[in-house]
Every structure is written in C-alpha cells, then in structure tokens.
C-alpha cells in the first residue's frame, strides 16, 4: 500500500486549490475548473444553467461563433461544461482540452492560453448594462428546457433518473439533474447575474491539470485571478443520509415503448463507509452484477435469456446500489424475481471461489487502468481531494485484494430493497411509420 501519490496539490487562494498530474505520456493537456456547491432545490436549476451560459463566449470572443473560431485556431481545442453530482454536492465544471505546445505548429503556449480562456469564461463574460447578455441567456434557457424535456428520449437513462428521483425524494440526491422546467422562466438577466456571482462566491474551487505540459504558467494565471478575492465557500454534505422505507416502494409508469425498463434501487448504508466496507461493497457489486462473469450477466442474461443488459452499479456517496435491465413487457416480474434470487445467492455465499477471483481481478484491472486516461485521472483525484484522502487507484486495488468472502456476503446483507421502478410498455403507438 501507499504508492507514491502523484498529485501535486497547492492552495492558491482561499477555498481554491490547484492540482496537477504531470504526465509526459499524453500529447495533450486537460485543464478543468471544478466549482463544487451544495445541491439544493432553490439553486439546482440556476446551477444547471450557468455553465451553459458561461461556456459560450467571453469579452475577447463575444459570440459563440467568434469563440468557436478562437478554439479552432488553437488546433481544435475543446471547451466543455458539465454539471455532475457527487452525492449531495454538484460539481459544475469548465474544461479546456488541447494538444500540447510541443505539437503546436506556431509554438503557442497552449496551457497558458487554456488558463487565460477558462478565466475569461469565468470572470469576463459578455455583459450588457452590467448584466449577463440577454440573447445568449435566452438561448441557453431554451436549450436547458429542451434538455429537460428530452430526458424521455433515452429510455435507459430516463428510467435510471426516475428511480433516483423517487428513491431520494425530498433529498439533494433526488433532485433532477437539470433542475425544474418551471424555474427556468424565472431566471431573468438580473437573476442569472446574481447566480453567476453567487456561484463564484460560494463554490469550493478545485482546478486540475493533467497532461504533458508544464503547468506553472497556468497556475500563476489562476493564482493571480483568485488571490485577494473574498470568497465564502459553503460547507458540502457529500454523503447521503437516506434511510430506506419500512417496505420497498414500487412505481410503474406506462409509455409507448417497445421494451420495458426495470430498475431496482437498494439502500447500501448512509454516511461514509469505512475503507474495508467500501471495498467489500465494491467487490460484492462486481460479483453480483458488475462484469460479464457476474451473477446477473451469466444467469439472468445468458442462462435465462431474459434481457440484453442487466447490470448493478454502486454509488458510495449516495449509499445506493442500482440494478437496471431492459426486458420484454411480460417478463418484468420474472426478471425482478430472478435478480432478487441472485442477490439471495450472494447473501448466502453461494458463489464459487472462481466467481470471486474473477470479480476481484476485474476490479483490480479497472483501478490499474485509471492512470491511462487524462479524464480518468482527473475524476479519480477530484474524488480523493474532496474526501481529503491521498489514495492512489493502485492502493484501492490492493484493498480489494484483501476483501474476504464473508465480507462480500455481509455487504450483500447490508442491502435493503428500497425502490422498484418499471417503465412499462403500453403496447400502443410503437414505431408507426410513414413513407416506408
């Protein structure tokens, strides 16, 4: 254990950290500003909107077209925004990804340009009479509304989202990813501008660099921009304190779909798990439904031929394990029973030593692979930084090695079925075609 921790981490201002993994294997650099905020009913919609507004343009390139041309000149650099959930917190991020200066034909300092652009997007948006420009705001409000409505288009992710909203109803983890349609209209230029200032004032800021370049120039630019700013970062409740209901709650929603979607949410314990419990739950998830040799894949898919996908995933922050599957309408009950049977088998320890070894090897492979992708490294070390830990993926792989069979059974026994959601095909309106 205790592999050398590769992350160079430095506080550059109050509540503002700059971290870097210098890695000469990549021909690129990834630079990300993460703004971490509590997730709350009042701010969830604004927080989903603001990254969309900010990533489009800035003073120096005041339209989306001008800004896109600026990025094309930097060898097709990309700027992306995201708003992800980490348990009860939201991570709003703006990232810049581009080839390194070593490959730039005109010798541009690509990392410094990236930092300058990200800072421009954050602190120098296009303003009109001191407020965020109205046209861009209106376009992004419409886009957010379209995105909320289009949630129904992809049925697998829709069903997962509906399950989480029902399971964590009334809690931060249950708030919809993109907020509420009815809140969007209320976001006037003045309200959006206030939200922009609130986010910059109250977010914990985690800036990450992963790539081959020397980040010192970029770090200096970020330090200069954040130093001296009186900011008031809010405390974060990363872990859910969810308690499961006395008996599982079942939901059924009918839609005109060709395939029904079955999701089962299990409560896996609230608050942070100990390192040993966490590793046990991860290994148990792999044995149960995390790999192509898992119980769900081998028995529910391959042996019973019930579905194309049936998988389990565990979220340490939510304290939840979710199983999801796409099934024939009249096979939903049979599939649900089959999933519960497999869980019972794991609880009773009815899995072979080989199944356990396969799951262990698969997880260790995953941890060892984290370091091979810039995005994988960024996301892993952001997690460590938020938790105040200094573990490497290799350390976590070694913890998996130490988990016993009994610990896997115990982890399975900690699961409580909490919520069952079925998106049921109503059998009508399927694939009506014209002109064909």
């Amino acid at each position, binding site marked *: 254990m205790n592999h050398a921790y590769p992350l160079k981490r430095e506080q550059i201002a109050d509540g503002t950290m700059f971290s870097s993994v210098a*890695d*000469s*294997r*990549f*021909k*690129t650099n990834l630079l990300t500003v993460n703004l971490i905020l509590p997730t709350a009913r009042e701010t969830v919609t604004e927080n989903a909107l603001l990254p969309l507004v900010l990533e489009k343009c800035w003073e120096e390139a005041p*339209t*989306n*077209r001008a800004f*896109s*041309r600026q*990025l*094309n*000149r930097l*060898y*097709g650099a990309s700027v992306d925004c995201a708003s992800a959930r980490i348990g009860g917190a939201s991570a709003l991020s703006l990232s810049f*990804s*581009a080839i390194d200066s070593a*490959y730039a*034909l005109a010798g541009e300092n690509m990392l410094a340009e990236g930092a300058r652009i990200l800072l421009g997007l954050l602190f120098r948006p296009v303003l009109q009479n001191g407020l965020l420009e109205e046209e861009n705001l209106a*376009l992004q409000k*419409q*886009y957010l509304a379209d995105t909320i409505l*289009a949630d*129904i*288009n992809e*049925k697998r992710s829709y069903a997962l989202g509906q399950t989480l909203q029902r399971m964590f109803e009334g809690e931060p983890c249950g708030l919809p990813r993109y907020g509420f349609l009815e809140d969007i209209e209320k976001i006037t230029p003045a309200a959006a501008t206030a939200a922009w200032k609130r986010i910059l004032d109250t977010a914990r800021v985690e800036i990450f660099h992963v790539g081959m370049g020397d980040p010192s120039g970029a770090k200096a630019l970020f330090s200069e921009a954040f130093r001296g700013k009186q900011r008031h970062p809010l405390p974060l409740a990363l872990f859910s304190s969810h308690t499961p209901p006395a008996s599982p709650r079942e939901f059924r929603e009918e*839609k005109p*779909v*060709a*395939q029904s979607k079955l999701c089962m949410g299990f409560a896996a314990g609230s608050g942070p798990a100990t390192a040993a419990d966490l590793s046990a739950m991860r290994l148990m998830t792999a044995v149960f439904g995390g*790999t*192509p*040799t898992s119980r769900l894949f081998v028995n529910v*898919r*391959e042996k019973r031929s019930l579905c*194309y*996908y049936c998988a389990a995933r565990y979220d340490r922050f939510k304290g939840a394990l979710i199983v999801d599957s796409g*099934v*024939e309408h009249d096979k939903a009950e049979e599939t649900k029973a089959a999933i519960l049977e497999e869980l019972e088998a794991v609880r009773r320890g009815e899995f072979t030593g080989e199944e356990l*070894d*396969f799951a262990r090897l*698969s997880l*260790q*492979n*995953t941890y*060892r*692979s984290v*370091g*091979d*992708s*810039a995005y994988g490294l960024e996301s892993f070390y952001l997690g460590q930084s938020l938790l105040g830990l200094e573990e490497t993926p290799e350390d976590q792989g070694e913890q998996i090695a130490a988990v016993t069979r009994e610990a896997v059974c115990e982890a399975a026994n900690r699961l409580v079925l909490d919520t069952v959601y079925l998106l049921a095909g109503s059998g009508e*309106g*399927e*694939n*009506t*075609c*014209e*002109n*064909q």
Partner: protein
Amino acid sequence: MRKSVIRSERMGESYIRLEHESGLRILLYPMQGFRSAYAIFGTDYGSIDNCFRVEGEPDFTEVPDGIAHYLEHKLFESEDGDAFTLFARTGASANAYTSFDRTCYLFSCTDRFEDSFRALLQFVQQPYFTEETVAKEQGIIGQEIRMYDDNPGWQVMFGLLTALYRRHPICRDIAGTVESIAQITPELLYRCYRAFYNPANMVVTVAGNFDPEAAERILNEEIRPVQPRAVERPDFDEPPEALRPETVKQLDVSEPVFYFGWKQAPCASPREELREQILFNILLDLLAGPTSEFYERMNRAGLLNQTFGSEVFAGRSYRALFFGGESRDPRAVFSAFCETLEKAKRDGLPEEEFLECKNALYGRALRDINDVETAATALFSYEMMGLSVYDVSETIAAVTLEEAERALREGFDPRARALSIVEPAAR
C-alpha cells in the same frame, strides 16, 4: 513474417507492421509508460456482407440480415464455456462489436498480457455453434433489437439510410430483425465464418504496455495456416439518386429529431478516399460547425441547439454526409442549409476560416492517438482501409482551398439528398 516499421517524421513516432504467411496483417504499437494494453482482432466483415461468393463456388449465397452480429455474439461461446471466462481468469476486460463493415473482438488488460492475447487469438479461430446455443441467443439479441427500436438517434439515422439507399444493404439494421435472426442456423454461421474469418481478411492490432517480441512469438504459435480464399461481394448497383426525399417516423420523443444528408460514391483508391473524407470533414465544420454563419443564424432563430452535429459517414463501399440534431422545424433547417450550400458554391469559401478548420482537424487527429484504446482503434481502422494512421495528418497538411471548393461543387448533388424525421407520437 515480413516485418516493416511505419514512421511519422511529423510526430516522431513509429509502429511495427507484420505480415503473416496466412495473409494476416498485424500492427504492434508499444506505448511507453502506459499501464494497460489494448488488443483488437478484427475481420473485414459486417452487416452489409449478406451476399457473397467464395472463390471456387458457382453462385452467390444470400444470408439473413443480422448474421454478422449474431456470429459475433456466438463466437464468444466455445465447447467449454464462454470466452468471457478466459479473460476473467487474467483480469482482462473483453468485448466485441459489429458495425456495417467490420467485426472486432478486443480486450484491455494491465497484467498477464500474453495469456489474454493467446486467449483472443484462440477463441476467434475456434467457432462452436450448435442448435441449442444458437437458439438461446434469440432472446438476448431480440432484446437488443427492441432496445434500439426505442432509440430515437438510431431510428432517425436508419430513416435517412432507407431514404438515401435503394439497393445497398447499409439501410438494414446491423442486428437484423426479430424475423430475420429467426432464420439463422449453425450451418449458416459456419458458412459465413469460413468465408470471412480467413486470416487474409483480418487484422490484429495491439497498443500500449506489452512486449512486441512476445506478441510476435504468440502470433507465430497461434495463427493457423488457412488457405487464403478470395471472397467476392456483389456490386450493389446503387444509383446516385436518393430513393425518396423524406421519411417520417413517430416515437415517444419530446421534440422532433432529424437527420439529413447526401449520398456519395466512394473512391476506389484508398488515398483518394482519405483525401475526400478529410476535405468533407473540413467542409462540414466550415459550413455547419459551431464556427459557421449557418449554425449561428439557426441557433439565434431558435431552430438549432448544440445537439446539432455532422459527420462523414463512410466505410467499405459507401460514403454519405450526415447532419443531425433536434429542432422544432427540421424542414426549415434542411432548406436553409441547402440555400447555404448554393451560396457557398456561388461565392467560394473564406480562406481564413478554411485554414482554421484545417488546423482544428489536425489537432483532433493528433488527439486521436493519445491513449491505448483510441490508438489501437485508429491503427486498425486505417489498416483496414489499406492506409496508415500517419497518412491522416500528412493528408490534412496537404489539402488546399481549391480542392475543398471542388468537393463542395461535386459532393452535394440535390438529387442525392434526403431528410429523416422522428417526431413526437400523438398522445
């Protein structure tokens, strides 16, 4: 094995290319410092190859739609169990996929590369199909087809393909239909296997953390000598015109989803084909990307949002240009884009923007070989085309504004275009 080293002066890089006696081509690309290795064993065979004649046979054989994909699922099964187990023993993560013109089997690992590599080479060369195992897959693939039935992105793309193509099998679903896969038998699977899983029709690529000498030794031990047999595919005799101007389908979506595009004839020479694809990539970015006047205008009018994108959709025996996204009025977007094209044909292209788009494509091509998975995949794809991945950045550097203007004049025939819409079902 015949060995050569393929180099790029521009990137200061190289990889090893081997040619086995069987005709199998092998690319080895060790990457310093990476923990994982990624290997692909693939064949030049996909969903469009449902009619073929093997050298020495009198007639063409027609097989059910979806059989290449079915074969991919079934090849994972051997007499002793499924291939996933072989990889589970080494901790490797294995997968496979079938596209219109390729079938690939792959794994990634961080340990025991040699065992996994041997397992990959063995299981792909060991078909085992029985009545029972073939029947079992019907339910699983049936649910895979069902899943795509509900997927608007997939449905809108096939809507466009069925509007553009009259005879080319590209317009049929990769997985086939529940009815077509019901006709698949072990005999048919063996027949396709023998035709297309001949080493002369296949490529192996490995990138990342592995010893190339060990890989070569294992290949020499595991690749079975098979008499190369040529496979003839029929000429699809696809006319240049689109079959119909528009298709509309209804699904449970919030807003209309659309694809529009132009059918094109691919070039016979791989180098010319690569050059054309690069020219059209630049044109698509220039005319319809976020930097374009067209996108800005449509976006400000509330007709397009950032779901809009475009691609050069190309493979063995087909090429088309695709544009797709969400819009409350797809027909207005399509007609505005057609006007944009006419104007650009009249006025020519702005040189400065052309150079910016070319610059951007160069950077993106470089980022394409940044990690083990994308590197192995890119090496594989260009080898299948008969090229090297390094040809891409060289060709990008060489294309000119005049060529782009020529491509613009020739590539967008109004008779070869169509629009596909998936609209919200009436509630």
